[in-house]
């Protein structure tokens, strides 16, 4: 019981202290050279597809498909970017509006997942009640069923909820966000529970002795300690909303509600005739916000993946 720390993910602060404790002696010059060659080779495989996309997106010749390997095209042009920003789809919706809808879906998904998930995770981790084990297994099992399978019943369900004469939940950004949340929630609960399991209980017990109730303990003690996992959950929720096209294409019928991912899916379709340069430019535009946030939050995200949580 005492060495259990090995199995749990190491919180960021702790890791920072430990960083630099590397094994063995300094490497030799020969090892250094060989390692550098290997590392550069790996780096080039990682960068190759990314460079290729970027180079296609700025290729000045505006051709439908590239005719050669041209990683650094002569004379860059932002024409493809201008084209997709000026007219992202044939529908009457601007790039900014598409982006706004994407952000709306993403934020709603992130908030819903975080609120519902953290409450449930706390209860599953710290409180003991009948049916806890059954519930854990149920959440895990649901996590494994792909969202694709639930389309038909969700469609019928969300379309049966109406407000007034015109507003239908299924045909709204909120409806899509709820459907996406159905997919993100099980993992969030599972992952957050795993993380909360690794937080020492002493603080909570002390607070309980001081008369704090469960809600106060949750809000003021557990949540602040669970910062990394909260960052991860919010981020994964946001990504799920940002990249979602499956429910959106099935549900949404007003172009005013369309999202960036839907536009991207339209370009990727089997019969699409979008020039590759425009697809590349659009892909870069859609990827950059999430990539940037990911790279900024990287340390938190890695720490917050409570992988010990599989123990259940």
């Amino acid at each position, binding site marked *: 019981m005492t060495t259990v720390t090995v199995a749990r993910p190491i919180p960021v602060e702790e890791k920072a202290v430990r960083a630099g404790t590397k094994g063995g002696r300094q490497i030799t010059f020969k090892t250094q050279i060989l390692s550098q060659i290997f590392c550069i080779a790996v780096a080039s495989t990682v960068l190759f597809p990314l460079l290729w996309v970027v180079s296609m997106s700025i290729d000045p010749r505006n051709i*439908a*498909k590239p005719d050669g390997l041209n990683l650094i095209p002569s004379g860059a042009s932002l024409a493809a970017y201008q084209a997709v920003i000026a007219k992202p*789809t*044939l*529908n009457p919706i601007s790039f900014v509006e598409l982006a706004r809808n994407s952000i709306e879906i993403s934020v709603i998904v992130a908030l819903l997942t975080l609120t519902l998930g953290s409450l449930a995770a706390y209860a599953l981790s710290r409180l003991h009640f009948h049916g806890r084990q059954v519930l854990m297994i149920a959440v895990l099992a649901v996590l494994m069923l792909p969202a694709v399978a639930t389309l038909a019943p969700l*469609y*019928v369900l969300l*379309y049966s909820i109406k407000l007034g004469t015109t507003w*239908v939940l299924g*045909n709204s950004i909120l409806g899509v966000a709820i459907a996406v949340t159905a997919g993100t929630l099980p993992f969030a609960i599972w992952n957050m529970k795993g993380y909360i399991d690794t937080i020492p209980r002493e603080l909570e017990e002390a607070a309980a002795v001081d008369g704090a109730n469960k809600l106060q303990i949750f809000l003021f003690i557990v949540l602040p300690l669970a910062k990394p996992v909260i960052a991860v959950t919010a981020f994964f929720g946001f990504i799920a909303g940002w990249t979602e096209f499956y429910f959106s*294409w*099935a549900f949404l*019928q007003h*172009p005013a509600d369309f999202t960036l991912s839907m536009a991207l*899916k*339209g370009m990727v*379709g*089997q*019969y*699409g*005739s979008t020039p590759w340069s425009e697809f590349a430019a659009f892909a870069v535009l859609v990827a950059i916000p999430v990539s940037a946030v990911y790279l900024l939050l990287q340390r938190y995200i890695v720490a917050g993946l409570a992988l010990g949580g599989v123990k259940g």
Partner: protein
Amino acid sequence: MKTLIRLSSLTAVAILAAACSSGATTAPVATTAGMSGTITIWEAYGASGAAERDAFDTMVAAVKTDNPGLNVTVLDIPFSDLFSKFETAAATGGGPDLYIAPNDSLPTEARANLLVDESSLSATLLAAPYNESQVSLDAATVDGKLYEIPESMKAVGLFYRTDLLPTAPTTTDAWMTALKAGTKLGYVYGANGGGSYYMWGLYGAFGGKILDPATGKCAATSTTGVADSLKWLSDAKAAGLVLYQNDTDAKAAFIKGDIAGFIDGPWMTGDLKTALGAKLGVIPGPTGPGGPFSPLAAPDGFYINKASANTDLATKFALAMLTHEQTFVDKAGHIPANTTITITDPITQGFANVVKTGFARPTAAELNNYWSNFGNAIVAVIDKGTDPTQAVADACTAMDKANKK
């Protein structure tokens, strides 16, 4: 009550149209003027380049000018999602008032009771000002009822470059001779790129048949025609025929001059004309020992959503759009279902000739299981060297099994 109103209004349209048909052929406005309300229509021209969508927009604008009270919302859906999205939406009581598309999904949607039965319009459509061909109406009919208002016909023919191929080959033997002499020709065959659609024309050239219309069973093994056509394709490949996984690649090679001709449909016309101008020609695919090249001919058209609250208005709108068909013909190279429209463009006229030898696309449910099974057979023969007779027999068995025949 609602159906009664609809029927009576349709009759009114029919009577008006009949009245017009006795007079001059250019008095279309009478049937459609004075529409008011809001219409939502879906299309999928985003997949095929700019020309079609531009023509479509021009026509919608013209209809709106004729009917100031009419409000039209156009929604572009990716072609790969169009049918699926419409079917789910319409089945739950939503979706647009109507959509315009090829008739790939017509039999499925008609049998799922998602489309308005337009049978009472048949006479109207055959008469002026619409003058639609009987073939187009036949291919829009499922189980004896009309569920689609045909707009134009589609079928594949041979695009060729007059600069590289002054006299295009017209028979399967002439193709073979040309290939052996070093002329590069192209054909689309891939399973993912619709190979079984492009192959259909060759079946006719070798006297082959896929479906027995009476029993719904696969008829491809009743003669050697289908296997012969696959063998011909395989031999042609050996002689130098260039095969493509999808028609976008074939188009690129054609524009570049790597091939002098390839089999494809009128949706390519716009882009090819832009690139090649007067160097472009179209004739039917090769005639063979069993008959002419007979590609699937099917109408693009309007489908009225049964779940719409505006089915009357949607129908009237579709008819109004038909009166501006000339725009589609001139701007986007559509082959009109209307037989009296003047075609000035030689390419479009070329395709009109192709359509004449076309095979009206069957609306039997059994055809659903043709595509992938025979797509497999084509790929197996071309890439794996499977014996054509064996490949066709396998595909036939698989198709009948899926159709529970």
